């Protein structure tokens, strides 16, 4: 059930999609999402339009989301933000329901290349949300040596002891280990090479020693607030950071770098099988697929929506992105050049987790 760009997969259809033509439910829609990953104002507009309330439960990593969903600890109506690294396991655990496209009138707005994604041919369970790439976010006014950001060596800046105490890496084992792999010239973020992974694990231990990074997904606010000067982060973090700068600070202070072959990804919406309000969930997805709503959403979230109409150029033209941060946008060329993070088989995943726990135990 693991799809890759080279060999796409049609996921098994588990369960029935909901019937056509149902009216949206009323009450409270429960959404499981990352923190600060959807614009409260956009949600308020949705609440008003449908006369409902939306409440959010937060997860920090996809692994936590999977664990909570499996144990029944959380019972949301809609999940936002998962990627295909966990999709196979969600489907295997029969946690998702097939979508009913008749409710998704705006589905045609999705970027052409993602309408029939390799991880979910026919888009049975998923609808793309945002696209992003992983790179290094930094402050331009704190003495970071930007000339060093070139090719594989550029990643080495995360190991630079000059930045000790002011650095961060992502609390995402796939991204952080991939950074170490890339630095060693292994340009495969899905590798099953045990030696390469073991080396990556040691390198990360060295990173921890040299730089004492904070390990979380808060780069978007920490860099903006000035608590951190350099961080492994997702491209959208830098864009979102603009909203967290202290009043009066120019967005010029934020910078982002990534090599062309960096690992890219998109995440998506999906609806749990046990969703109590599936029609409403579809309605919210559809609402966020509308180009105007999506643009408004982007202003807060920072990440680039996976919509055809909102290309990098159009976002800059619309004034949504400051000039200095154009580097953080994902263009079709860079999306094509980047490597996708796909699901790993349990054996390979165990290797990755081993390397990760060596890093996290310090």
């Amino acid at each position, binding site marked *: 059930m693991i799809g890759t760009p080279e060999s796409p997969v049609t996921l098994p259809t588990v369960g029935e999609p909901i019937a056509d033509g149902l009216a949206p439910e009323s009450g409270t829609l429960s959404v499981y999402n990352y923190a600060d990953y959807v614009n409260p104002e956009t949600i308020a507009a949705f609440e008003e339009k449908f006369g409902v309330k939306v409440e959010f439960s937060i997860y920090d990593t996809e692994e*936590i989301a999977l664990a909570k969903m*499996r144990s029944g600890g959380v019972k949301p109506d809609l999940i936002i933000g998962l990627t295909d690294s966990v999709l196979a396991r969600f489907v*295997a655990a029969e946690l998702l329901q097939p979508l009913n496209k008749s409710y998704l009138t705006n589905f045609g707005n999705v970027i052409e290349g993602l309408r029939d994604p390799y991880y979910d041919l026919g888009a049975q369970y998923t609808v793309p949300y945002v696209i992003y790439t992983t790179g290094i976010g930094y402050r331009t006014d704190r003495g970071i040596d930007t000339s060093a950001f070139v090719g594989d060596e550029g990643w080495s800046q995360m190991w630079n002891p000059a930045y000790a*105490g002011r650095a961060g890496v992502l609390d995402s084992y796939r991204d952080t280990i991939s950074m170490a792999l890339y630095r060693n010239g292994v340009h495969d973020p899905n590798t099953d090479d045990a030696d390469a992974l073991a080396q990556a694990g040691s390198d990360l231990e060295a990173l921890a020693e040299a730089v*004492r990074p904070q390990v979380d997904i808060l780069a978007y606010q920490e860099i903006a607030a000035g608590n951190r000067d350099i961080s492994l982060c997702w491209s959208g973090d830098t864009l979102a950071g603009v909203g967290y700068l*202290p009043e009066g600070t120019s967005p010029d202070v934020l910078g982002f770098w990534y090599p062309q072959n960096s690992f890219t990804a998109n995440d998506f919406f999906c609806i749990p099988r046990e969703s109590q309000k599936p029609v409403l969930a579809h309605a919210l997805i559809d609402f966020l697929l509308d180009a105007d709503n999506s643009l408004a959403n982007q202003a807060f979230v920072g990440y680039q929506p996976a919509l055809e109409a909102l290309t990098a150029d159009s976002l800059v033209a619309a004034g949504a992105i400051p000039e200095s941060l154009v580097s953080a946008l994902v263009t079709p060329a860079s999306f094509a050049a980047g490597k996708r993070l796909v699901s790993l088989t349990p054996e390979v995943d165990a290797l990755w987790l081993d390397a990760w726990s*060596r890093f996290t135990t*310090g």
Partner: protein
Amino acid sequence: MSTSAPTSTGRAPAGAPRASSTTSRSWSVFALPGTAWLAVFFAVPLYAVAAIAFGRIDPVFRNALPAWNPLQWNFSTFVDVLGDILAGELRGVAVRTVFYVVVAVVCSLAIGYPVAYFLARSAGRTKTLILVLIVLPFWVSYLMRMLAWVNLLQRDGLVARFTSLFGVEHNWLDGSATAVTLGLVYGYVPFLILPLYATLERLDWRLVEAARDLGASPRQAFWRVTVPLSRPGVAAGLMLVALPMLGDYYTNDIISRSPRTEMLGNQIDFYLNAGTQPQRGAVLVLVLSFVLACLAWWYVRDNARSEVVR
């Protein structure tokens, strides 16, 4: 008349004999509901931890499959983790945790004892005032107190701006052991002061006076009379503080999110809540409980013995 009283013993012993002389056995009925509760929600969960620690793992989802029958227990993960603690990747975490706790407890004692002593020896309205102020942190959530300190220590916080006046440019939240240890001290000192105060308050000060009368200097009287007399209370207080500290993880999470300062509690939280390896988490919980049980048992024995000696 007593209708306004909280019906604390509302559970009237239904089947208890209404004889005029009550056997001590029949009092057990009162204790039964509570005991049953603790059995179901305390003892059994602890057993469940063992069942999971010694159970199996689902290969695809890596979630735990508990083994309730001790005869089916599988100790491979347990041995694995023990090996990791003694010589492998968990060794750093274990050593570091013990180190932080020891340092933090010593510092807490150094701060808490003088304060408790002063409080015990003062009198009158000042005493009540100080007592209230010292108890105050209890009514403030631990997290809020940490939050308050983190705010002050941030790059643009008051402490950093104050020290930059003197030219000291230091990032107080840079993931250092000092920051975490001081955080632990700040968080737990109030929990130490009260038991210390309780002990010192009940101390028989006449013994100290007697020592003074016999010619001891204040310092000698302190070290040779007060301190030994307060030892049981101090030990109790230290237990009360060290035990929770060994399982602390949120202090590190709030003050420093760096792997360099990771404590055992963080590791347990990671294994259990991040959903990756619940079985290892359960094993670590067992190991932690065992260590704490040893400490508690040693304390109880030590206390009992000193009682006998007195």
